[in-house]
């Protein structure tokens, strides 16, 4: 296995980002040429207007860092986890349930609620993991089905257990289940950022250690590179596939817990709509080059775009332009492999490129 130089990977990510942004700019130009320049400037600088905006970047980044880690972790074992959305919402439901019913837990309340979220996400990913390992069911299809099953099941359970009939959503959690702010509200006033961001950073570092510093991580990656060869080398590839999915699900579930315990007035709405944060995990993982620390930055980057996009409404643009840009970025990062080989070939042809 030839190791690709990191800077080439980075360049191809940068390329996808630039083309995506350019695409967004063109759309702004078409829809309103007079304001396009200002609007585009706002996307790029909006996140740095004040400390509140910076705090909002951290707040938006928190759940998508976790879904990004989730997609990345499964990806390392050669699995595409498109089910982060379902895992996230099942985790979120259990967190909200514990958050509502577990007031007796006192100071540990929010921790237990997060653990429940982790368990929920893990359980929801266990099923496609087992189906893949034992019956060879393609994990993409199984995860898509699990997304919808999870969504309908959570809708049902919310109505049965923690329903706010007036607003058609889940009841607010107890104050003790809200994730503490740990002083972040002093640094970033009025911004909703909370200790969840530190948990996301901790999760990224933990995943880095597991993937790159342990035998278990090595085995997971070996299965991802070549299932047959790793079986030949004595690795139990079925067990690793299941574990990889379970950990991926646990991460997405934790993301759901952090999102709905943030005490920001976000509730599980009883609508037939998949949680978008699960899908945003895919561009986060791609832009982060499937590396836990890269994902940390990719999550922050997408949070930064989201906050900038919010200010676009000042210029009469719809903030959905950010989703358009993100979609363009994913589309072009799907080309990344081609771009990488293109740059490499050029480097060889021109005699440059240095050590490979």
């Amino acid at each position, binding site marked *: 296995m030839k190791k690709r130089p990191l800077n080439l990977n980075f360049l191809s990510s940068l390329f996808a980002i630039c083309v995506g942004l350019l695409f967004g700019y063109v759309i702004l130009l078409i829809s309103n040429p007079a304001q396009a320049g200002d609007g585009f400037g706002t996307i790029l600088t909006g996140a740095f207007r004040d400390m509140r905006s910076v705090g909002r970047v951290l707040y938006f980044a928190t759940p998508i860092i976790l879904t990004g880690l989730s997609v990345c972790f499964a990806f390392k074992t050669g699995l595409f986890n498109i089910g982060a959305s379902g895992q996230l919402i099942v985790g979120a439901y259990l967190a909200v349930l514990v958050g509502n019913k577990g007031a007796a837990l006192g100071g540990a309340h929010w921790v237990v609620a997060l653990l429940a979220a982790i368990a929920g996400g893990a359980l929801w990913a266990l099923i496609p993991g087992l*189906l893949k390992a034992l019956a060879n069911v393609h994990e993409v299809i199984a995860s898509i089905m699990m997304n919808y099953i999870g969504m309908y099941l959570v809708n049902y359970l919310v109505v049965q257990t923690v329903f706010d009939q007036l607003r058609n959503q889940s009841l607010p959690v107890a104050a003790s289940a809200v994730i503490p702010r740990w002083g972040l509200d002093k640094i970033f006033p009025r911004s909703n950022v909370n200790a969840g961001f530190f948990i996301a950073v901790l999760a990224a570092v933990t995943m880095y250690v597991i993937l790159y510093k342990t035998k278990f991580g090595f085995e997971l990656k070996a299965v991802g590179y070549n299932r047959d060869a790793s079986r030949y080398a004595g690795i139990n590839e079925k067990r690793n596939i299941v574990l990889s999915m379970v950990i991926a699900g646990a991460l997405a579930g934790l993301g759901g817990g952090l999102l709905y315990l943030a005490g920001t007035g976000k509730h599980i709405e009883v609508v037939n709509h998949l949680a978008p944060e699960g899908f945003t995990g*895919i561009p986060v993982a791609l832009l982060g080059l499937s590396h836990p620390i890269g994902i940390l930055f990719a999550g922050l980057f997408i949070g930064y775009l989201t906050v900038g996009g919010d200010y676009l409404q000042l210029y009469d643009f719809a903030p959905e332009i950010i989703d358009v840009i*993100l979609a363009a970025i994913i589309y072009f990062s799907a080309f990344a492999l081609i771009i990488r080989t293109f740059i490499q070939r050029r480097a060889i042809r021109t005699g440059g490129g240095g050590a490979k």
Partner: protein
Amino acid sequence: MKIIYFIVQQTMTFSIPLLIVALGGMFSERSGVVNIALEGIMVFGAFTSILFINQMQDTMQGQLLLILAIAVAAVSGMLISLLHAYASIHMKADQVISGTAINMLTPAVAIYVARMIQQIQQIGFVNTFRIVSVPLLGNIPVLGPLFFQNTYLTTYLGFAILIVSALVLYRTRFGLRLRACGEHPQAADSVGINVYKMRYAGVLISGLLAGIGGLVFVIPTSTNFNATVAGYGFLALAVLIFGQWKPGRILLAAFFFGLMQAIASAYSGIPFLAGLGIPNYFYRMTPFIATLVVLTFTSKKSRAPKAAGVPYDKSAR
């Protein structure tokens, strides 16, 4: 009897878009390109055609407008599927990632454009397309109320597409070549079939049908388009798998899934089902669970096209 008529009519409403879109997915996958972008293509087809209806409904109504809107949906579906075709065939990109990008792109574009044009994201339309009773055929006892009353032109279009699809896939040279490219592209190439061209054709047909399917889904079920087709693209993907990539079975799967949706949305009005007291969420979940169960028992000996999802690389022959 009235209840049975009602259920059948409702089932049609939900089954036909699933049938059309799943047939589209069949063409793509049998040519060797996995298409999870069906949802996004449906959204785009519905968006452009409903916008078209919204703009034109003052000058024309009824079946003529519907036919023109279907054409708009078909063309725009094909255009957006070109993105997927280019990425997955020419650029040899990961087909799941490219599909995901399209699924994210089209709802965002639909909301953005709608809000830039008319401030709100919902695009309203007046439904002048319902056929209360087909002349003559609607008067036939039993069959009339079942299939020719309270219906839409699109229902018959759906069946026409099914018949044409089956004929094309199994009775034409094009169909044979398409299937060859999905099973063993190297072999197909070695006898002079242009694999890239066939795969482009497969993806474009899926775009055409999924675009139409988006419009067909929105018209009977709503009075406005809100940048979503409620997961029907993914449900169609399940229909495709449940139907084992074969037109006849896809029809059965579409009816089964459509029936579940019909029950879920109308069961409270049906005394027998309301008495059972099963919440509608379970009816909505059933198709997805059923697909998982089918997959569990068939994946070891999957009938999926062998080369689906693998970019064709001429130099690797």
